[in-house]
């Protein structure tokens, strides 16, 4: 696994250049799954609310590795590889459900909700014939168990032996901003998947790119949901891989976009049904938009009152499944739920704002097809990864590559 990666050299310019072979090198994908996803990193598995009571399970992924997340009879949450110790079959075939034990459909091997093998069909054979030898140790091939941490209603897991504790991994500012959004027990409103025809890294760069948001997404700019001239900030964690971009709802009514003739600024564009954008300051801090990521593949979104967790499932070099789960809180009344359902029009594959992200990552994937040795230019906001007030910056994109290179050994 190390041989291939070591043949590649990161451009001498450092974090301000991203080589295009990074999205198209077929061998790199396997290295990433092993070094990053199955390495010392934390992965969002599901909301705690998706395991609503004891003896429930939910399937999820760490990279492209399938996992099962469970809540046992005592309420404790566990996660383990969705792979039978025997012949490698998936153990759980459903997205979610109730179970007191997990039974492999192939040969009936049985596991408890911690992922420990508890039974093997006909282990002693039948009528003294067949079965396993007395000294066989099938437990030695058990599905790998993940270390799990539940933080503010979010379930994260890691396979790494040396992964730092979750809060240390987040850093204090990111941890505080997660708690800010997860202010009460979550209530799931629903979900869907968006299939991106691009490498997983292109999506994570897109989310961390605070520079593109108001330029690509006209809806943001026109309705002053997120302009770079609005007060806000960009926070990048110390290791680079986690970030927050936020902006205040209040705008100074600047005309920077109009004066610059930006396509996304249409002053005469008004909604006939402005109730779509009606929102409340539920967090009491005037922040109307906060996008937060945790390396490598987690996104927590607050767009006004539209809240969502997103996780990526890499499905090969040029395909990524983006799993969206939108939520509110147990404390929401009917009117608040309706408000969130309306604002859900802003996000997802049909989102007035986010539909373009689904396409933009594919445009890059297709655009760089003949240019593995060329590089992208990531110089907005200089060359560093420090937090800053301006979001006319690609600091969080550079932060992603800082973490990536460290994990990959580039």
């Amino acid at each position: 696994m190390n041989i291939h990666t070591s043949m590649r050299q990161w451009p001498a310019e450092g974090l301000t250049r991203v080589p295009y072979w990074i999205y198209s090198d077929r061998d790199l994908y396997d290295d990433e799954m092993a070094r990053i996803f199955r390495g010392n990193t934390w992965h969002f598995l599901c909301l705690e609310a998706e395991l609503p009571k004891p003896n429930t399970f939910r399937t999820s992924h760490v990279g492209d590795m399938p996992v099962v997340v469970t809540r046992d009879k005592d309420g404790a949450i566990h996660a383990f590889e969705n792979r039978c110790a025997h012949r490698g079959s998936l153990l759980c075939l459903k997205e979610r459900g109730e179970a007191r034990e997990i039974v492999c459909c192939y040969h009936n091997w049985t596991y408890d909700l911690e992922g420990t093998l508890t039974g093997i069909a006909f282990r002693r054979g039948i009528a003294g014939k067949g079965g396993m030898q007395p000294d066989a140790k099938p437990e030695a091939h058990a599905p790998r168990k993940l270390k799990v941490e539940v933080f503010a209603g979010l379930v994260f897991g890691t396979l790494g032996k040396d992964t730092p504790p979750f809060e240390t991994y987040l850093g204090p500012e990111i941890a505080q901003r997660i708690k800010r959004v997860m202010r009460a027990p979550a209530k799931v409103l629903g979900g869907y998947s968006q299939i991106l025809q691009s490498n997983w890294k292109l999506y994570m760069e897109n989310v961390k790119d605070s520079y593109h948001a108001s330029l690509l997404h006209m809806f943001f700019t026109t309705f002053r949901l997120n302009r770079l001239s609005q007060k806000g900030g960009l926070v990048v964690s110390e290791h680079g891989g986690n970030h927050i971009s936020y902006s205040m709802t209040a705008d100074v009514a600047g005309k920077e976009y109009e004066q610059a003739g930006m396509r996304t600024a249409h002053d005469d564009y008004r909604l006939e049904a402005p109730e779509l954008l009606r929102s409340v300051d539920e967090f009491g801090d005037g922040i109307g938009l906060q996008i937060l990521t945790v390396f490598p593949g987690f996104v927590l979104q607050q767009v006004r009152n539209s809240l969502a967790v997103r996780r990526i499932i890499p499905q090969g070099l040029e395909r990524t499944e983006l799993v969206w789960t939108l939520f509110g809180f147990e404390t929401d009344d009917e009117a608040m739920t309706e408000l969130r359902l309306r604002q859900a029009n802003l996000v997802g594959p049909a989102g007035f704002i986010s539909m373009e992200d689904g396409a933009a990552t594919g445009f890059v994937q297709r655009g760089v097809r003949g240019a593995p040795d060329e590089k992208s230019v990531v110089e907005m906001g200089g060359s560093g990864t420090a937090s800053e007030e301006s979001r006319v910056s690609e600091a969080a994109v550079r932060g992603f590559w800082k973490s990536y290179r460290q994990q990959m050994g580039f």
Partner: protein
Amino acid sequence: MLAESNSATGLERQLAVQDLNARYVEAIDDDKLEAWPDFFTEDGRYRITTAENAAQGLPLGIMYATSRAMLRDRVRALREANIYETQRYRHIVGAPRVIASEGNAIRARSGFIVVRIMHTGEMTIFATGSYEDKVTLDASSNARFADKTVMLDSRAIDTLLAIPL
């Protein structure tokens, strides 16, 4: 109340739903999106969701509108604000099954399949599902959707869903 499927009234009602859906998908497939909101009543409800959400009793929509005005905003955004590659749909809608018919309202269900054709020539089966319709007939027997739920069979959408289903 069950549909009077063997009476002329029942058949006419079934045909009214079928004709409404035929004109509805023709407008979308022929890129006459400006006509799309007029297939709904003034406070008509339109929602795209997935069978998975419905099975769990979850209310989330992928698109959700509660008036013609909101539908017009959708069309305006598609024409002026949103960025997406040139594409078109071909809808094939099955015969409606009338679930209930009472007064001037008909509840019906029709299966559909949508092929998406990109400007590159690439054709894919983009969506399948059912239209769960509540159709109302006005005094002149004009049929409109008071409620149209597009129930998708799959939870996954390829790339983006710009044009309505």
